[in-house]
């Protein structure tokens, strides 16, 4: 289970990555959000046994991440660190679906194994797309663009405040939890009752803090919408990129690239 330090580290790492200046970072966040959604919908629209046709889709997150100079190891580590529910459920596929789908060099592959691998690929593709979006855009710009995409300001405000206070309160939780660990041996004193007290005190501090924040914000003229710093008009180059990528997604979806490449290779070998 990832610890507090790891989560905090990851959050600040994302923040730093989003401050880089590459062509990918400069794409309008709205375009990136729409493209990410289109990508995820395309990937998930395949049937459950799709393995080979999904592989070329790796081009999108891999090339975007590379062009944005994102550290590959960091992204891969983030993918591996969560023990995804999908994998826990997917592992049952080979048990329940034993019909032989095809065989590779005499090794029969059951539908269950094919669909399990498909789940793993779907997971990696969808999650890396989300991580690349976050790492190249930054949370603040995602929120302001969501607001210009008609998401209620109450929610975008909430997202930003949450993000801001995660760092503060996590630090506090980290100190509380570390102090308790130092004073106890193993699982002792980590019972429900002591945790309840600990959480209650954290909650009281939170409420106190919220009161201070509100007073400070009111004094500075609290508004319930985020100021828009970005250009409201999407650049032409970004629109062209969007059309290009959407076309590429559609072509990949309806044109069997891997079949053609595989056919050429086996033709050349045979």
């Amino acid at each position: 289970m990832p610890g507090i330090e790891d989560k905090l580290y990851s959050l600040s790492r994302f923040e730093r990555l989003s401050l880089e200046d590459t062509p990918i970072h400069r794409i309008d966040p709205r375009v990136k959000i729409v493209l990410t959604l289109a990508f995820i919908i395309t990937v998930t629209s395949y049937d459950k046994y799709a393995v080979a046709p999904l592989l070329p889709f790796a081009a999108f997150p891999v090339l975007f991440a590379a062009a944005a100079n994102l550290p590959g190891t960091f992204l891969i580590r983030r993918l591996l660190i969560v023990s995804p529910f999908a994998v826990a459920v997917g592992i049952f596929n080979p048990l329940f679906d034993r019909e032989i789908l095809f065989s590779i060099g005499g090794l029969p592959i059951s539908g269950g194994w094919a669909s399990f691998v498909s789940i793993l690929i779907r997971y990696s593709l969808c999650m890396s797309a989300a991580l690349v979006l976050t790492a190249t855009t930054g949370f603040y710009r995602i929120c302001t663009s969501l607001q210009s995409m008609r998401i209620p300001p109450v929610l975008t405000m909430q997202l930003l405040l949450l993000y801001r206070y995660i760092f503060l309160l996590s630090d506090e939780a980290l100190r509380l939890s570390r102090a308790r660990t130092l004073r106890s041996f193993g699982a002792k004193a980590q019972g429900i009752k002591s945790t309840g007290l600990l959480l209650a005190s954290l909650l009281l501090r939170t409420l106190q803090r919220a009161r201070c924040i509100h007073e400070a914000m009111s004094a500075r003229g609290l508004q319930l919408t985020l100021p828009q710093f970005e250009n409201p008009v999407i650049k032409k180059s970004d629109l062209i990129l969007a059309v290009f990528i959407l076309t590429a997604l559609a072509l990949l979806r309806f044109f069997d690239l891997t079949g053609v490449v595989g056919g050429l290779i086996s033709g050349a070998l045979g």
Partner: protein
Amino acid sequence: MHMSDALLSPVVGGVLWGICATVIAVSAEKLKKDSDTAKIPLMGALGAFVFAAQMINFSIPGTGSSGHLGGAMLLSILLGPYAAFLVMVSILAVQALFFADGGILALGANIFNMGFYACFLAYPLLYRPIAGDGTRRGRVFTAAVTASIAGMTAGAFSVVIQTMLSGISSLPFGPFAAMMLPIHFAIGIVEGIVTGFVVLTVHSIDPGISISRPLVFSVKRRKKALVLIFAAAVLIGGLFSRFASNYPDGLEWAVAGVSGGVETESGESGFFAASSLLQERDTDNPETTVSGLIGGIITLIAIFLMGFFLKKRAGKASASRGGHAGN
């Protein structure tokens, strides 16, 4: 129990997104009418509190496992259902974007499973009536536990339904529900207890705080226990699967009973058949499948090579610009 993009079909994910968007719009509208600006920073801070509190683990007596705070019920108690729902949306969005928990398509499903039930069903229908004015400890505890169990199991049940409708997993309904429900029932009990503790403690220290109700916790087992449970589950699943093909499982059986036993070729009936028809394509013949696989792997290698060179160039470019030290 984050639902994942990898298990969802776009149709199921999209429908849940639609439902959640509507509920978000309604909640935002209600909050606007509320016009209490003090609630805005309170929502932000409490969202972060839930996030931070999830990092403080506690051991669960007699099991050797540990749990942490979930949040939706606590938030409902502190903020009311509409604001609590928006806070849950924001927490789940941050988890999807930064921690690869769930995913963007699955966000709608996750909001529905972990936010909607607790905020709009368990809280108003169970917690409020049972807890009463929140002054009696016993009632607050009972209310917290009952509402948490209801919220948890309802969420877990909907994970099962969503997975079934999407048709990516081959896990039959019966065994899947049999695994999910008891675990989440137990998690609900623990959540309810810790919730009760926190609320009562806060209330006893600062009675001025308008808390007339408790908090929620979701259990995460320690790695060792997790692996054991998991191994057991796979084993049980394997045993189940021997029967699964021979006997229709609970819901299929029920649906068949209702629909007059209309069976499709694949042996599925009712809405499962409909959903699997959406998913099924005629399976390619073996030869093209294998050559497709070879092609896919070659394409993948090409992609990573291209990525590698692109990254090298991007690295050089940012270094020559005296770019950021963040890498």
